[in-house]
């Protein structure tokens, strides 16, 4: 062993030079590269001879305990040189510690950190040194070698291995890892982890994952070794929490580069928070699909590429969602969006598209319900239009308050000889019988027009081509490309290529968010939400009150937000200018956070004209002006500004 390390030290400088030789300007000089090639060829020829000889010697290898104790077993220097050559830069950075600590060196060998680029690295060439100094190279399995070495030393390695086991990783991270908050903090964490005895064991998981990624991306046939690696990688992914996997990957890939390791934690953009597993992925995924023009599932590598794009060219976010924008356009740029998303509490909600159901009262109510609902219920399975209103519909249904819900399919019931109507939730969801297409199927089968088991599909009118065979039969609800500005999305019903006019489609609602005039508070959506979800609500009096409310108990992660009704003309005057006395378009906004900068307060706000993943940061005085103006025109001078929490 000592002999090997000694050889290693001597060759270290040469090796470093040889590894970087290809990038050297000297290479362009005649003769240099040729010499390197000759040297390389010579090396590999010698290695082949050594390997052959070692394999031949194996037949003389005796594994009896008493014989093993009589001899010394060391890594062959030439083979060590080969391993070093096939070691990636992050693991090379661990070698100084290996030189000082033999047990650490063994842990690198054990975890294939040395020679991590070799696919089949389960065998080693070992020199057997007898009592008289005679050297015999042997071709031993890694297990055989480690059994010999660990027989009488390095017991601590067993403990490190135990601590790094898949089932203990969660606890290990909990005890030893935190997200660095400052460059100093990050430097300390990096140094601490770099020195850890567990590092080679932990990084072994990352090596397997990286290899598996490479193998599974290649279409070529996979041998049993590759298949084993892919299977192991799957187990690792199942057993290690995603967040911890992110941290592990970042650490193990940047063992040699502290700056890059810290970059991930000190970059506070929302996009980066997603990459380190701290932010919800959906707001980023949606944007990246459009930015990268990808129709396939967005992978982690795509997210990294997308993050770089958004940081380099923030303007790209302003005009996403083309060819048709389903909310206010332009959106804030990527940087502004990132800052707002970092503070928004709506990032876990499902994607919505307000333009397809442009009812501020219903959109904001639905978002409040989704936010205060358990996490499982937040994840709806439907399209964005379905996500707009489904939470509210089900709450109204549960409380038997659907009478003001005007979205209905009406038909003439031939048996009862009267018109019957069924309410529905606009949008598609295969799992919800109240969704638009499922309700339509019910209506058509009651009319005897649709066979049992047949289904309807809602598609864009532009996609419908009656000449194609797949549209010749079946039920299609054709949605016009135009937005649903009248309060509904105009649709045409086609059954077996014939337009059906006997099903009447009604739209709209009569719900108010809060009370007005003689309309009692008990009949408002806000009252229903408060009582059904058992929320505590109180009026907010000023910005300090709002700030205190949103900041108190912040660490306890208590669900809370503020809601306000205001005139949109006062808050977004560039989009909605005022032209007359007391002109106002009511808008309900949800406030996630407020912070003070240079004496001014800025609130993170979700408007119902924007999709839920596009919050805006608005100066408090604009919000206040909008709220006051709404209060001014309200029949009972009511100010709608509440703090709500669960």
């Amino acid at each position, binding site marked *: 062993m000592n002999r090997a390390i000694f050889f290693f030290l001597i060759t270290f400088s040469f090796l470093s030079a040889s590894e970087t030789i290809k990038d050297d300007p000297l290479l362009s000089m005649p003769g240099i590269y040729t010499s390197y090639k000759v040297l390389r060829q010579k090396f590999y020829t010698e290695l082949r001879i050594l390997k052959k000889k070692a394999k031949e010697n194996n037949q003389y290898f005796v594994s009896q305990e008493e014989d093993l104790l009589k001899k010394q077993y060391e890594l062959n220097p030439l083979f060590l040189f080969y391993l070093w050559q096939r070691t990636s830069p992050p693991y090379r950075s661990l070698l100084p510690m290996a030189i000082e600590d033999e047990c650490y060196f063994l842990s690198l060998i054990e975890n294939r950190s040395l020679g991590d680029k070799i696919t089949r690295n389960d065998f080693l060439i070992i020199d057997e040194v007898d009592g008289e100094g005679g050297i015999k190279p042997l071709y031993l399995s890694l297990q055989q070698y480690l059994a010999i070495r660990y027989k009488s030393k390095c017991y601590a390695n067993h403990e490190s291995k135990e601590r790094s086991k898949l089932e203990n990783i969660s606890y290990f991270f909990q005890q030893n890892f935190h997200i660095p908050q400052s460059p100093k903090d990050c430097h300390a964490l990096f140094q601490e982890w770099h020195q850890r005895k567990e590092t080679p064991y932990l990084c072994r998981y990352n090596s397997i994952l990286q290899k598996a990624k490479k193998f599974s991306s290649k279409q070529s046939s996979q041998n049993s070794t590759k298949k084993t690696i892919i299977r192991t990688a799957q187990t690792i992914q199942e057993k290690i929490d995603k967040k911890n996997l992110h941290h592990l990957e970042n650490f193990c890939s940047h063992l040699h580069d502290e700056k890059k390791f810290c970059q991930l934690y000190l970059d506070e953009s929302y996009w980066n928070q997603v990459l380190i597993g701290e932010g919800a992925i959906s707001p980023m995924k949606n944007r990246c699909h459009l930015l990268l023009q990808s129709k396939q599932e967005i992978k982690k590598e795509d997210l990294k590429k997308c993050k770089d794009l958004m940081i380099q060219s923030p303007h790209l976010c302003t005009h996403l969602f083309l060819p048709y924008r389903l909310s206010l356009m332009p959106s804030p740029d990527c940087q502004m969006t990132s800052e707002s998303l970092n503070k928004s509490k709506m990032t876990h909600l499902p994607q919505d598209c307000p333009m397809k159901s442009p*009812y501020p009262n219903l959109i904001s109510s639905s978002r409040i319900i989704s936010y205060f609902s358990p996490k499982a219920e937040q994840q709806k399975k439907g399209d964005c239009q379905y996500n707009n209103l489904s939470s509210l519909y089900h709450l109204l249904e549960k409380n038997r308050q659907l009478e003001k819900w005007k979205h209905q399919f009406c038909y003439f019931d031939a048996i009862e000889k009267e018109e019957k109507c069924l309410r529905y939730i606009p949008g598609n969801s295969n799992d919800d019988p109240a969704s638009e297409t499922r309700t339509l199927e019910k209506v058509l089968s009651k009319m005897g027009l649709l066979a049992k088991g047949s289904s309807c599909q809602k598609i864009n009118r532009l996609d419908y081509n009656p000449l194609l065979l797949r549209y010749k039969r079946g039920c299609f609800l054709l949605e016009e490309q135009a937005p649903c500005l009248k309060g509904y999305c105009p649709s045409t019903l086609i059954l077996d290529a014939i337009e059906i006019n006997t099903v009447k489609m009604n739209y709209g609602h009569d719900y108010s968010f809060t009370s007005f005039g003689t309309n009692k508070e008990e009949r408002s959506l806000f009252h229903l939400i408060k009582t059904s979800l058992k929320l505590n609500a109180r009026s907010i009096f000023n910005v300090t009150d709002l700030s205190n409310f949103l900041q108190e108990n912040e660490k306890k992660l208590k669900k809370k937000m503020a809601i306000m009704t205001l005139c949109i003309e*006062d808050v977004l*005057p560039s989009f909605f200018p005022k032209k007359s006395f007391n002109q106002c378009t009511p808008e309900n906004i949800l406030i996630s956070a407020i912070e003070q900068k240079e004496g001014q307060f800025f609130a993170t706000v979700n408007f119902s004209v924007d999709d839920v993943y596009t919050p805006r940061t608005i100066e408090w005085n604009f919000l206040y002006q909008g709220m006051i103006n709404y209060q001014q025109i309200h029949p009972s001078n009511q100010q709608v500004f509440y703090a709500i929490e669960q």
Partner: protein
Amino acid sequence: MPLNNNRISSPFLLSFFIFSLPLCSLFSQEKLKKLLTKQQANKIRYLSSDGEFTYYQGHNGNLVLASNYETKEIIKGDQNHQYFITEESSFVSAQKNSSKKILLEIIPDFYTNSHALKNHQIHTLILGESLSTPLGEGIRGQIHLKGRYISYYRPSEKKIILHDSASNKKEYSIQLQNKINAYFTPSIVIPENNYLFYTDLNEKNQMGLLLFNLKDGKINPVYKTTISGKKIEICLLNNLLILGEFPLPGVDSDSSIFSLDIEKEKDFSLLKKIYHSEKADTGNLQCNSNLKEFYFIQNQSSEKKKSYELVRYDLQEEKVINLTNFEYTTNYFIMDGLVLVPFRQDYYIARGSYETKDISFSNKKK
């Protein structure tokens, strides 16, 4: 002529502005006259500058005309109704109140079901009269050429509807090309009987100015913004077309205002830049032919503080002059020659004078 006439950016004014902010706010609010009316300001929907006519929304949701201490109900409504009244944006003083056309927008289901692009019921009225004439459904109604034309926009169909009251109530319909941005609403001006200018969007969300010939229905694009996400606002100062190009929120770009004498020149490459700012102004450009000036909301934010103020551009002096000092001026509108700025619960008179004639008392004395 200097391009940047933004006086507030001069070092002296800037330092004055920064160091005396609290004082300035108080001073400006004192300096700007608060609009004091007989009727509660929050009920008013239209007010003539001499106080003779006030349209207001009653407690029961009806629209009422108050004049000479008499009230007349114009529209019977309920508390779920809302009304907005506008008049010809480019004020012409010669037009007497007695024959002045105003535009009424009625919004039913205001508290239950209203949104930024919901169609309103549009009616016309002669100022002082109580009978309204229904015209159609749309938003952003505008009166042009002393009431000869009335335009409004129908977002659901993306159409500009234009009523010609002179030629046997002829109706024009202009289909917008905008296919990508539902919240876009066009800006419209009619300089003379034969043609109108309006704004539209292309597939890259770039706004353009188009000329529509009322005689043959032909459309010609005349101007386009340099980048997408900028809005064009237009208004008329007699023969002068004022064109503002302002970035919408979220777009990091500069603001410019141009002018063109459209009586003499139709070539928009000859647009003259009369104002430029590196900042994103709010805009909301409106012209006042009577005073030969136009107004817009200017972004006067510094690195440390956000600030927006109403300014006027004086064409004769070729300079921008602050009209407010509220820091958060978001909107203003022109009503019967008064430039009114809503701030907190009040309205402030930025230009013009409001002098009530107590007609009823003088009549009674006589």
